[in-house]
């Protein structure tokens, strides 16, 4: 690690408005305590990177934010709406929160364009022409407009993940969650996806990213969080986090992956 810490290359867009507030959240799978007393505040425009060993609960935590997983205790407030049993709230929050998965989860029976326009047409009630316009705009932003008529199975992994990002953006979300977006990709495709994510960060999107790409964390993150065994063990600015980790477990983890 160099003595001259690399400065965050992106100016932070974080404002004081709170987008996600997690308070004393606990979650169990049966008897197994997966998430323990989680507290986290994400401001508008803030970019959070979460890392940690597998099984540490980082994926589970961000899946709780758009209610793909239920939590049993504590509260999660997303864009001012309390996540609870209310299904109406649930659907509303999911349209405000985009999510990108490790395995893309594109719909294989639809063309790329149909994948992108499905949400806008059926959920946002946009008319077809506008929906296609929006979809093409975002496909251009992820640099694959020429693939619009193809099916997901005909694209490379990196292209599929960029389509998945575009699909989320088509819903015009306020927050984007990334669950290990590059873990299922071949090495030469990781960069193209990370480039798209950096560009997205440039636009001031609020982002919560679970990843092991520490280069990305250094470049983009406002805050880096280290999780282990269901705890948020350490949270800090990337420069401090990488150059001067406080906790023993963080030090051990960083020494293993860097």
């Amino acid at each position, binding site marked *: 690690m160099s003595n001259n810490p690399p400065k965050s290359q992106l100016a932070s867009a974080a404002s004081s408005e709170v987008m996600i507030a997690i308070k004393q959240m606990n979650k169990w799978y049966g008897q197994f305590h997966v998430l323990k007393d989680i507290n986290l505040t994400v401001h508008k425009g803030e970019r959070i990177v979460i890392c940690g060993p597998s099984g540490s609960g980082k994926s589970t935590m961000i899946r709780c934010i*758009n209610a793909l997983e239920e939590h049993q205790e504590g509260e999660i407030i997303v864009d001012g709406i309390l996540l609870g049993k209310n299904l109406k709230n649930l659907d509303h929050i999911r349209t405000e929160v985009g999510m990108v998965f490790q395995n893309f*989860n594109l719909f294989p029976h639809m063309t790329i364009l149909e994948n992108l326009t499905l949400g806008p047409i059926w959920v946002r009630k946009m008319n077809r022409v506008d929906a296609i316009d929006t979809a093409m705009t975002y496909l251009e932003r992820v640099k694959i407009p020429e693939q619009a008529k193809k099916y997901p199975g005909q694209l490379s992994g990196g292209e599929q993940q960029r389509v998945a990002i575009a699909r989320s953006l088509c819903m015009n979300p306020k927050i984007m969650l990334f669950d290990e977006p590059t873990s299922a990709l071949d090495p030469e495709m990781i960069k193209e996806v990370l480039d798209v994510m950096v560009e997205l960060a440039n636009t001031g999107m609020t982002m919560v990213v679970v990843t092991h790409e520490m280069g990305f964390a250094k470049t983009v993150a406002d805050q880096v969080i280290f999780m282990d065994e269901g705890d948020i063990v350490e949270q800090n600015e990337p420069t401090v986090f990488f150059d001067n980790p406080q906790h023993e477990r963080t030090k051990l983890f960083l020494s293993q992956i860097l």
Partner: protein
Amino acid sequence: MAMIKAEKTPERSAPISESSVIGWLHKHLFSSAFNTLLTFVMLYIIYLTVSGVFSWGVLDATFVADNRRECYDNSLTGACWAGVIHWTNNIFYGRYPREEIWRINFGGLLLVLWMAPLWMSRVKGKVLVATTTVVFYPFLASYLFSGGDKGFFMQIMVAGAMTAFALNMANLLAGLFRSQGLNSFLIKALGQENASDKTQRNILLLLAGIVFGVAFFWQMGQTLQPIVWTKWGGLFLTLVISGVGIASALPGGIILALGRRSKLVIVRVLSIGFIEVFRSVPLITVLFMATTMFPLFMPEGFVLNKLVQVIIAVVLFNACYMAETVRAGLQAIPKGQYEGAHTIGLGYWRTMRLVIMPQALKYMIPNIVGSFIGLLKDTTLVSIIGLFDILGMLRSISKDTPWLGLHKEPLIFGAILFFIMCASMSKYSRHLEVKLSAGRTH
């Protein structure tokens, strides 16, 4: 040891054994002495069977005769097809009055024409065509087949069916000759391309309304001679029962399968109970229950005819089997697909309809068609509870005085008929599989 290959290795054509007929023969039929022997033994067995069947069924057979005695006089070793030919009308239509048979043929023709657009890529609006088939055709067909006085509801449905059919055919022509939907063709023909969506929709509704009005007044003057269901029979009855069964089993099965996977405990338990009860009872038992016990549970004076009871039994029974097929298909869809759909805000029903079902149905096609084939064959069981479906008709030939004891030929004819129907269904299912998976590798 280091090496560098400077040039690409050129491609060569495959060895002769991979491409020529002789290569193929050698590889698949004569690869060793033992295989050669097997090939010849098999060829001999095939020759014996085919020549035997051919001389019995064609060369020595009697096609024209007035009774079984004449068949024997003509040839002792050949088939007596004359009996089957004599009974053709009964085999196909049962005891339906001869002069009214056109109604059955017309009903069948209507269905074929009605659904034809579904197989033509140039015709637009397939979903609407399919929906009108399910909603309107059954009413038109049931009136065609049974006739009698129409109640007010029936009048509306019959007129609606005629409207839907007329528009469907017009849409078919617009698709074939102009490659566009009827709606855009009409709007253009009337010079209303620039009118607002609302005006255009109103114009189309008005046109449909006019067609409906004409159909309604025309049908008021038409009454078909009533024909009681007991006269229905033969292949016609078999197709009515299995047709209704096939059309209702899939939707019923989808609902039951979704119920079985539901998070709501009561819905789930009820679905499981329903499915397991029907699946663990033989169809014949369900048929007997439906015709003898079902009326006991009904309020006094409530009479359902036996045909309706049988159809209900067949539908319920097959919906339960279909439910398990659908469930298997649903389980093949990864959890990520549900999550992907949820993250773009699709609710449960839209997720199912737009994302899950279209994929799952593709996996299910072989099993669904398998169930349909089973259903078609199973409906012959209704001959046991006294309905004269095709099997009942075929078996009564041997009890007809001139053809007394003629068992073999009618049953073989029936087998050929069923083979043709079932084989074309399975052939079509294979075609569908190929078509649906074209260009989609995953």
